[in-house]
C-alpha cells in the first residue's frame, strides 16, 4: 500500500513536470484552454446554482433551530450563516460536488483518448500531450473553479436570506444587518486559497488517472471512480490542513 502510494505520487509529480515545455503552437493551446474553461466552468454553473441555493437555505434553517435562546439577537443567525458558507460550505461542499462532475469528466475524456490511441496519435505528430491535453485543463480549473466558489458564496447567502424570510424566522433587514456584523475580509481570502487548492486537486488527480488508463472501457470506468474518490479524500485532507494552518 505504502509502496503503491510512492509509486503513484512519483509518477504524478513526473506528469506535472512533463507539462512544462514550450507549446508547439500557442494559438492551439489557447483554443484548448478556452474550450476547457467553457467545459469546466460554464458547464458546471447549473449544478453550482442549485446546490448553493439549497445549501444556504438549509444552513439558515438549521442555525435558527440551534440558536433558540431569546438573549441572542436574530441578526446573529445571519452572521453565523455568512461565516459558515464563506469558510466551509461554498469552497468545500462545492468542490466535493465538482470533483464528481468535473473529475469524472476529465478522467473519462482522457481515458477514452488513451484507450482509443488518440493520445498516441498526437504524440506521433510531435505534440507534447501532457502539455497540450493536461495543462489547459488544470489552468482552466484554477481559473474557473474559484469563480464558481465565489458565485456559490453569494448565492448561498442569498438563498439563506430567502429561506429565512419564507420560513418567517428572520426578516430581510435583520439578515442584512447580521451580514455586516464583524465581517472579516480575511475569510474571503481563506475561501479563495482553499478553492484554488481544491481546483488543482480536482483537475490534476483525475487527469493523472485518465491519462494513465491501460486496457479498455471497463478500466476507463474504474479510473473515473478512483479519480473521484481520491480527489474527494484529498480535498478533505487539504481542507483540514489549510484550516489548521491559515485560521
Amino acid at each position, binding site marked *: 500500500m505504502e509502496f503503491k502510494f510512492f509509486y503513484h505520487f512519483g509518477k504524478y509529480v513526473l506528469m506535472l513536470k512533463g507539462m512544462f515545455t514550450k507549446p508547439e503552437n500557442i494559438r*492551439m493551446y489557447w483554443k484548448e484552454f478556452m474550450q476547457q474553461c467553457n467545459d469546466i466552468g460554464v458547464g458546471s454553473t447549473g449544478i453550482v446554482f442549485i446546490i448553493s441555493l439549497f445549501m444556504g437555505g438549509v444552513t439558515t434553517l438549521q442555525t435558527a433551530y440551534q440558536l433558540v435562546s431569546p438573549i441572542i439577537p436574530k441578526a446573529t443567525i445571519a452572521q453565523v450563516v455568512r461565516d459558515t458558507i464563506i469558510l466551509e460550505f461554498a469552497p468545500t461542499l462545492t468542490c466535493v460536488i465538482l470533483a464528481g462532475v468535473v473529475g469524472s469528466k476529465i478522467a473519462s475524456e482522457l481515458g477514452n483518448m488513451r484507450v482509443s490511441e*488518440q493520445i*498516441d496519435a498526437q504524440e506521433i505528430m*510531435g*505534440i*507534447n500531450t501532457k502539455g497540450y491535453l493536461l495543462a489547459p485543463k488544470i489552468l482552466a480549473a484554477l481559473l474557473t473553479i474559484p469563480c464558481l466558489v465565489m458565485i456559490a458564496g453569494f448565492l448561498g447567502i442569498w438563498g439563506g436570506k430567502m429561506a429565512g424570510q419564507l420560513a418567517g424566522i428572520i426578516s430581510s433587514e435583520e439578515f442584512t444587518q447580521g451580514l455586516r456584523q464583524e465581517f472579516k475580509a480575511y475569510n474571503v481570502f481563506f475561501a479563495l486559497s482553499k478553492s484554488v487548492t481544491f481546483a488543482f486537486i480536482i483537475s490534476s488527480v483525475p487527469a493523472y488517472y485518465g491519462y494513465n488508463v491501460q486496457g479498455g472501457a471497463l478500466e476507463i470506468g474504474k479510473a473515473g471512480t478512483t479519480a473521484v474518490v481520491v480527489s474527494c479524500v484529498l480535498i478533505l485532507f487539504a481542507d483540514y490542513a489549510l484550516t489548521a494552518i491559515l485560521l
Partner: protein
Amino acid sequence: MIELLNIKKGFGDKEILKDVTATMAAGKINLIIGSSGSGKTVLMKCIVGLIEVDSGKVLYSGQDFTAMDNHQRKEIRKEIGMLFQGSALFDSMTVEQNVMFPLDMFSSERLRDKKKRVQEVLDRVNLNEAGKKFPAEISGGMKKRVGIARAIVLNPKYLFCDEPNSGLDPQTSLVIDKLIKELTVEYNITTVMNTHDMNTVMESGDHIVYMFEGKKQWEGNNEEIIFSKDKRLNDFIFASEFLQDAKEMRQMEVFKDKNWRDKLKASNDQLDADREEKR
C-alpha cells in the same frame, strides 16, 4: 532508411521482442507480417518510440532515435505519419477538423491554404463528401482512409500503417492497399506496414519481414516469398486451402523462371488482345 538493431522488449517477465534486427528500405513499402500476437504492433510502436525498447537501437537515416531526448524526437516525429490499428481519430472533431489538426498545430500557412490542402488530401483518399461528418458517423473503411489522410497531410517522409485493411471487406481492402502503394511512390515515402493479409503481401511487399513469436524468422520480398523453404513461413503464407494450390503451382515450370510475374502478365495481355481481335 530505418534500421533496427537488436531490438528487445518485454512486458513484466514476458519477452515479446527477442532480438529483432532488420532494415526498412527507403521509398519502399516494407511489410511486417506474422500471425496474431507475434509482436507486430509492439515492434512498430518501438520503432516510432511509443514504447521504449529495453535494449537495441532504432536508426532513422543513421540517427539514433532511441538515444534522443523528447525535444530531438519531436523533430523526427514531424516527418512521421501513422495510421493506427483502430484509426485513432479524434472523436470530438469532424473528418475535416481531424485532417486539419496537424496543419493547425504545425503549419504557419494561411487558413485558406490549409483548407485547400485538407480538400486535396481528402480528394486523394476519395472522401470529399464526408468532410462534415464525425468519426462515429462513418464506416470502418472510411475511418481508415481519414486516418491515412491525416497521416499524409504534412507530407511525411515515413508512413507507418498498423493493419490498414484488417476488418475490411476484400474490395475496400484492395482500395486501401492501392492507395498506400500509390502514395508511397508518389511522394517517395518510406512506408512500414503491419499486415496478415496475403493479398497485401503479394501486391505491395517490396520488402517483407516475417515475425514469429517475437523473432525475425525471414526477410525478403514478394518475389522470393512463395519460393521460400522456411517451414514456418510456408505454414503462414499457405494457411488457406486456396493457397495450398498455389504451393503446388510453384512446382510448375512457369514459376521456376525469375520473371514469372512479367511473363504471366504478358501472356494474359496476349489472351485479352486475341479476344478483342476475335470480336
